[in-house]
């Protein structure tokens, strides 16, 4: 089959790879209909996450049609249209049973790497390096889905493919940030990042009752999209002093909940940006936590900061003093998609949650490399490149 493979730093190519097959009785084989690039893939492309082999199939946010099921699969049959959570849960360990699916105990086949890095191994994920299980990704004609009864979720007829693909990761990740960030009616919520996950976090905050939602970014076209589609307020940090603006908007308090949806390659400007660039180039820090610092600094006393962006290692100048002295709650997680996806699909069906605008570029899989170029370099107002194998 054809698949988009990581071939080296900033080098992805569509190639022939072996077809997937049923390896465990609970597996299914999915014919991929849509699979979208995700901002976290860029950390693989740029080599920030160094556990890739040439020939690895990337992609983890996808939907499609079931073509084959293992003998233990009871909830799906060939022909079903499903969306698949990007993190693989077994559904039966302590973490899955407590709706903390990305922390699954039983799905990372290479646990030693992340145990050494982080002290414990999270669950496996499709197409996201050998540190996360080495599972083949979804930018392919077919993909194997383990523990399919738990990880593949039927799509209601009222939800079209292009809406549903974002229920795989962007929408549940964004919802999780607002939900576990504790957004309540009347809150002011600030979101750093107006990509797909940031926009989903902003919309989720609205749906959970936030009175004001402010999105921060530097790309006007993305901020305009968030404004136009969801009616949020926006701030461009290249033109506005974010701290002063947020204090003015919140009567001097600061936002109740700050959601970081940027990740380990955050951009900034001035001395802070230069400092982090030098430190990361010298490998003295692995990640650039600029948006996290800003979120912590600007959050109101006693507020909550939720880190949604992907980080891999260690950071420098982490403002622990602000966290402690302002009494902040700091939370973070990879997405617990299975917990939210059915509810989000219902909201998509009812029209509450719009996602198709995120798919600014729908391309054949054969144009995968071009899609990532558009996405990475923010060319042609790209928000997401979505591939159709």
């Amino acid at each position, binding site marked *: 089959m054809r698949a988009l493979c990581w071939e080296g730093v900033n080098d992805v190519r569509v190639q022939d790879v072996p077809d997937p097959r049923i*390896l465990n*009785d609970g597996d299914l084989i999915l014919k991929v209909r849509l699979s979208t690039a995700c901002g976290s893939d860029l950390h693989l492309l740029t080599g920030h996450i160094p556990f890739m*082999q*040439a020939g690895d199939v990337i992609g983890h946010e996808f939907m499609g049609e079931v073509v084959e099921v293992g003998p233990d699969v009871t909830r799906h049959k060939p022909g079903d249209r499903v969306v698949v959570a990007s993190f693989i849960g077994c559904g039966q360990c302590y973490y899955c049973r407590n709706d903390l699916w990305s922390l699954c105990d039983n799905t990372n086949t290479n646990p030693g790497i992340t145990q050494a890095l982080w002290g414990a191994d999270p669950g496996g994920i499709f197409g996201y390096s050998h540190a996360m299980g080495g599972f083949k990704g979804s930018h392919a004609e077919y993909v194997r889905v383990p523990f399919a009864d738990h990880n593949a979720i039927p799509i209601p007829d009222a939800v079209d493919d292009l809406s549903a693909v974002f229920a795989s990761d962007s929408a549940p990740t964004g919802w999780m940030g607002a939900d576990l960030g504790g957004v309540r009616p009347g809150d002011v919520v600030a979101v750093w990042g107006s990509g797909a996950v940031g926009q989903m976090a902003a919309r989720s905050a609205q749906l959970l009752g936030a009175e004001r939602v402010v999105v921060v970014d530097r790309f006007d076209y993305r901020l305009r999209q968030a404004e136009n589609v969801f009616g949020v307020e926006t701030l461009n940090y290249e033109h506005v002093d974010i701290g002063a603006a947020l204090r003015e908007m919140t009567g001097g308090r600061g936002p109740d909940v700050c959601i970081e949806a940027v990740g380990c390659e955050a951009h900034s400007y001035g001395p802070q940006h230069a400092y982090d660039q030098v430190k990361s180039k010298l490998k003295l820090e692995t990640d650039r936590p600029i948006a996290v610092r800003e979120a912590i600094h600007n959050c109101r006393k006693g507020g909550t900061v939720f880190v949604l962006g992907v980080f891999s290692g260690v950071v420098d100048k982490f403002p622990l003093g602000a966290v402690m002295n302002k009494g902040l709650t700091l939370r973070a997680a990879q997405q617990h998609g299975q917990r939210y996806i059915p509810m989000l699909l219902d909201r998509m069906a009812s029209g509450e949650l719009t996602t198709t605008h995120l798919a600014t570029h729908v391309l054949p899989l054969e144009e995968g490399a071009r899609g990532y170029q558009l996405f990475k370099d923010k060319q042609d107002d790209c928000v997401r490149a979505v591939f159709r194998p």
Partner: protein
Amino acid sequence: MNTTMRAIAVTGVGAAVAVGRRMTARRRELHRDRSDHWLAVTIDRSMDAVTGPARLPGPMGELGGRVEVRFRPAPGGRGTEVLAAPQDDDVSREDLRVALRKTKSLLETGTVIRPDTPPTTHPGPAGKVLRLVVGKSAREGRL
């Protein structure tokens, strides 16, 4: 080199050697201490479900009397803690760790998830190095 410089150099080298020896001794002590600890895993199933059958399933059952195994209920109703230590020089802590992990998966899910194969068709030199790391990663680490 004058006498003062020579004295500083000798002192510096001596200090570095002393620090290095101390660090090495500390590492050895930690390694010995680590080997003294039991390996442990928590299975999200009741004591009855874990200890009911005549022996543990899968790799732990196959190890049989070559390992000593203890059970205790996890606090807060979080299942059963299984602790194990090799009783036979042929059983490494790494093998035991893998056995515990697979047995936990068998008891919780009825299976052990298999990695996608082949991992890639053309890993390249860097990928081959990574394969060595990955091969080792299944064996070492924390439970």
